[in-house]
């Protein structure tokens, strides 16, 4: 699968995850978010940027439980809850947020 944006073709897997992580940019994020019907706010970007940093550090997309804990540590306890993250990304913070952040599907995402 693939999509076109600003004259460039982006390859995705069958679930819509970007194949080449280095192709990601903010416009790609906005496109993928629109596909997921997510309206990106500053709070969404905070999580997306966090995920990209996490991936850069550890080379994996975190499982939801791990993401929740790490977000709480970094951005404050009120944001480190699955309720908060599911409000931002209704189809699952790891699955949906990772896709928009240009990361692969999380390992151990059950």
């Amino acid at each position, binding site marked *: 699968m693939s999509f076109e944006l600003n004259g460039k073709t982006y390859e995705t897997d069958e679930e819509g995850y970007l194949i080449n992580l280095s192709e990601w940019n903010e416009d790609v994020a906005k496109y993928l978010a629109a596909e997921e019907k997510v309206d990106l706010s500053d709070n969404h970007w905070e999580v997306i940027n966090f995920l990209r940093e996490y991936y850069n*550090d550890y080379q994996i997309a975190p499982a939801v439980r791990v993401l929740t804990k790490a977000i709480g540590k970094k951005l404050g306890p009120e944001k480190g809850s699955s309720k908060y993250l599911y409000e931002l990304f209704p189809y699952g913070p790891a699955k949906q947020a990772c896709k928009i952040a240009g990361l692969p599907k999380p390992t151990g995402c059950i």
Partner: protein
Amino acid sequence: MTETTGGVELDEEMSGVIKKFMFVNRKAPYGTIYALEGLEVVLISAAFDQDVSLVFLDDGIYQLVKGQHTKAIDVKNFSPTYRALEGYDIEKLYVEKESLEARNLTVDNLIVPVEVLTSAEMAALMTEQDVVISF
């Protein structure tokens, strides 16, 4: 073998039994898929709240060596992922003393903190496990 709970206190809210799982890594990180697949299984196992420990011996030690550069063989360097294990509450990492020494390595060469055990201590730890899975 010890009792099924392995002396681990069960959370009253959780009715599941906690078993002692040991994952044994014995192969070099690249060239075969074993190391990467093993790591993925470990990450998935974390979701089940079991008592997980990881062992590195023989060439499996090389999985943890600092400064891996994989560009020339065109595969992903997944060694930073071992540093994520702590966030998954997987904190029992053991390496075999004899395997380290045979390769002229020390714990300072490794990317994560580990406990060094002799072959005999490792064997004793293995007999305590409910499940041992080797990669």
